[in-house]
């Protein structure tokens, strides 16, 4: 068989998380208006100020226009065809422990490889499982509490830690930041809240697992992580959705606050349903992720993006404090008709701030994969440093790979370096591997993994293995 045929075969694979869970759900009929927002707020029993905050965001959103600058194409989204709230009925009266949670829900997560029973879990990883618009379980909470770490659904945090929420919600991504962030601020359902107290090194990895299940439903979660002075936390996020013919909307907001001397490591393995080979269905993933670093703090974003019909996300760091550090490591794989426009923004405000950007884009099939990044050095960011490397790997001659870096410097003591390359998995490379007896499947995955190595080494151990496998599965039957 020729190398090309091998590649073709490799690029067509199935989406393994595409099953649906049949649970009875309370789902709002599609449509968006003030009533819907009041309903969501009431459902969550929110205090008035949260409702006011939502309504203010809604007003802003109504005045905004859909952004068009990204290198993506899709029919206009009818926001009145989306349901903004769906929750499994069994969750209506808040199960007090895992034993009370609908076994069907637990089985769903088990099938996805995320058992929620603590004794079965990966040691050292606490999980918040979000199913459509609600959190169904958060594990290891009591154990975390021993060290003062708060890890709970945001809907609970609003009641239990109103001071923290009031102070920080929207402090990094304001309500009117952009079109999708404004929408999220109006209708956000659930998400995770994390607080690490001063000087505490979080004893385990924290993770949230997002699952969209209900048809015609959007997911609008909101995550808020606050790492107090000198603390340290590593947080993981995973996402899947069933295989459906229609496009589903996911518009999340993530805010990170790293107070002086704190470190936040945020890793994402995004595997939303990408649609089929013809481009039918799949998740529209419009996400705003941003962190702010105070003095000597560090935020590191690592993402492995293999899913979604459209990915639109730019995890960013505002390096406000002196000596703060921002990092962005990304692997984005697109195949079939997937489109990704993703990258980062590093805004250097403080002195001696440092940022590193490593982006690896892999395009196959008829997909479009764009890196878009901004590095801005403000006038008072003395001695700021940035290093950016973005590489694209193309598999097949019908895909596109694009690089749109913005580099803005207003301080003469700053040093910025940007490098980009584009290459392909060449026939010669494949032939060399095969001549040494290596299977073409293995050869492609070796080459692709080698291409992504600098990013994978940033992922927590379990996820690195996971990501490698995910890439293999995604490429299987998807290269062409």
């Amino acid at each position, binding site marked *: 068989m020729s190398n090309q045929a091998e590649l073709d075969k490799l690029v067509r694979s199935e989406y393994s998380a595409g099953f649906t869970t049949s649970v009875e759900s309370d789902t709002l009929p599609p449509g968006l208006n003030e009533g819907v927002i009041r309903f969501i707020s009431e459902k969550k029993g929110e205090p008035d100020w949260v409702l006011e905050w939502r309504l203010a965001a809604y007003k802003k959103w109504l005045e905004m226009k859909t952004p068009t*600058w990204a290198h993506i194409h899709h029919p206009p989204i009818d926001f009145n065809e989306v349901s903004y709230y769906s929750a499994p009925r069994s969750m209506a009266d808040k199960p007090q422990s895992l034993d009370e949670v609908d076994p069907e829900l637990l089985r769903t997560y088990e099938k996805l490889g995320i058992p929620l029973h603590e004794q079965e879990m990966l040691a050292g990883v606490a999980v918040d499982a979000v199913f459509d618009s609600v959190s169904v379980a958060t594990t290891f909470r009591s154990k975390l509490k021993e060290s003062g770490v708060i890890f709970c659904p945001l809907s609970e945090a609003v009641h239990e830690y109103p001071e923290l929420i009031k102070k920080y919600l929207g402090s990094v991504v304001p309500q009117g930041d952009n079109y999708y962030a404004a929408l999220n601020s109006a209708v956000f359902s659930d998400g995770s809240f994390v607080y690490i107290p001063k000087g505490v090194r979080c004893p385990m990895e924290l993770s949230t697992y997002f699952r969209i299940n209900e048809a015609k439903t959007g997911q609008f979660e909101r995550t808020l992580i606050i790492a107090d002075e000198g603390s340290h936390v590593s947080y993981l996020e995973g996402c899947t959705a069933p295989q459906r013919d229609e496009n589903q909307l996911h518009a999340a907001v993530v805010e990170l606050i790293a107070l002086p001397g704190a470190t936040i490591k945020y890793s994402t393995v995004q595997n939303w349903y990408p649609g089929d080979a013809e481009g039918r269905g799949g998740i529209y993933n419009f996400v705003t992720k941003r962190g702010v670093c105070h003095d000597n703090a560090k935020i590191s974003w690592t993402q492995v993006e293999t899913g979604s019909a459209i990915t639109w996300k730019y995890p960013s760091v505002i390096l406000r404090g002196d000596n703060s550090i921002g990092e962005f490591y990304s692997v984005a794989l697109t195949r079939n008709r997937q489109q990704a426009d993703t990258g980062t923004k590093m805004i250097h405000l403080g002195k001696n701030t440092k940022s590193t950007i490593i982006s690896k884009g892999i395009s196959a099939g008829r997909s479009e994969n764009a890196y878009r990044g901004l590095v801005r*050095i403000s*006038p008072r960011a003395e001695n700021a440093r940035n290093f950016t490397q973005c590489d*694209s790997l*193309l*598999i*097949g*001659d*019908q*895909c*596109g*790979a*694009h*690089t*749109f*870096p*913005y*580099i*803005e*410097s*207003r*301080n*003469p*003591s*700053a*040093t*910025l*370096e*940007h*490098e*980009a*390359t*584009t*290459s*392909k998995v060449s026939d010669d490379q494949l032939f060399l591997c095969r001549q040494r007896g290596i299977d073409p499947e293995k050869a492609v995955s070796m080459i692709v993994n080698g291409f992504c190595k600098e990013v994978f080494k940033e992922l927590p151990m379990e996820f690195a293995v996971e990501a490698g496998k995910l890439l293999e599965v995604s490429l299987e039957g998807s290269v062409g």
Partner: protein
Amino acid sequence: MMLPDTLKEQALAGAALLDKELQEQAKQQSPHASNGLSAVRDAGRVALAEQVFPDKKVEQWKYTSLLALQNGHLKALADKTSSTVSAPDFGGVTLTIINGRLPALLPEIDGVTFSQEAVDQSAQAESVFSHYNAATLRAALTIKVAKGTHVAEPLHLIIISESDSPASAAVRLHIEAADNSTFTVIEHYVGSGPTLCSSTTSLYAGANSNVQHYRLQSETPESLHIGELSIHQQRDSRVASYQLMQANTLRRNNVRVWMNESGADLVMRGVFIARNKTHVDNQICIEHAAPHCTSDQIFKGIAGESGKAVFNGRIHIHPGAKGSDAKLSNKNLLLSNGAEIDSKPELEIYNDDVKCAHGTTVGQMDSQQQFYLQSRGISAEAAKRMLGVGFINELLMALPNERVAEWARDWLSASL
């Protein structure tokens, strides 16, 4: 009134002014033989009326404000017919254009024809300024190099824009080097006063032709220049384009290269210096539209005091352009607080069989090197100048025309 509307009004006034000037002329003398100019002008005026002037929300104008134009450059036409501005001699045949007017006598070179034919370039308009250029043209110059002609000496075009008050001067050049020809052309833009030079140059390189092109822009800091250059390459043509720019009140350098047939090769080198409240914005796009073409670009920029330098370099590999090899390097020095450099190297690739790479750096002068020079008794200022020239010199050393290189070194040293 919003700035874009103000500018449009003024631009239309400028076009009407030219129309009036031409009617006056027509009364005094018999009309010129038709050379397409009036058609180009009319089309430009119509398009201008339909177009919108960009503001900063338009991606291509993100880093450049047109505020400086509100002083009325668009509505007045620079009217001097002679000039005291001098330009260096680079050898070869010289042709001087003053405020868009051609000399009465065009030069004679074997195998090269000069004419006043105006070629319609509206299909390639990069912005509303292409139409403004068309609508305010006093003359156009077309240069055709015949098949197989080897012109050893460079053609040196001295383009002067000069006025005492805000006014514009439009220039349009169309150069065709036919198959198997060899040709060198130097465009040198000079001038004085607050004049806006609106220039459009189109260069066609025929099959297997070899064209050297220089675009030198050294007008005074108070001037403005919005220029457009398009290069069209046919099979196996080799084009080398060297662009040296001194920033001014508003300098915009739009360049688009079309590699239309296989085997075309492009070398492009650029230098831009922005100091003392001056501004330069380069928008360079290489269209790899055919297989097996190669492009190699190096641009170096320096910004000091409150100067602002922008570089946007786009490489676009079209579907089917397999075997493309494109390289782009943009290196910049930021000398002082208050200065700004914005660089955006873009890759847009629709084919897997390509080799593309770009690199960008923004940094400062090496303090070790500076100290080393100072420790040998060289003043801090002189050391900076030496290092600045050294930073650019790598490009200047590769200039095939020694006299241009020599002039460039002096120019650089004076402007640092």
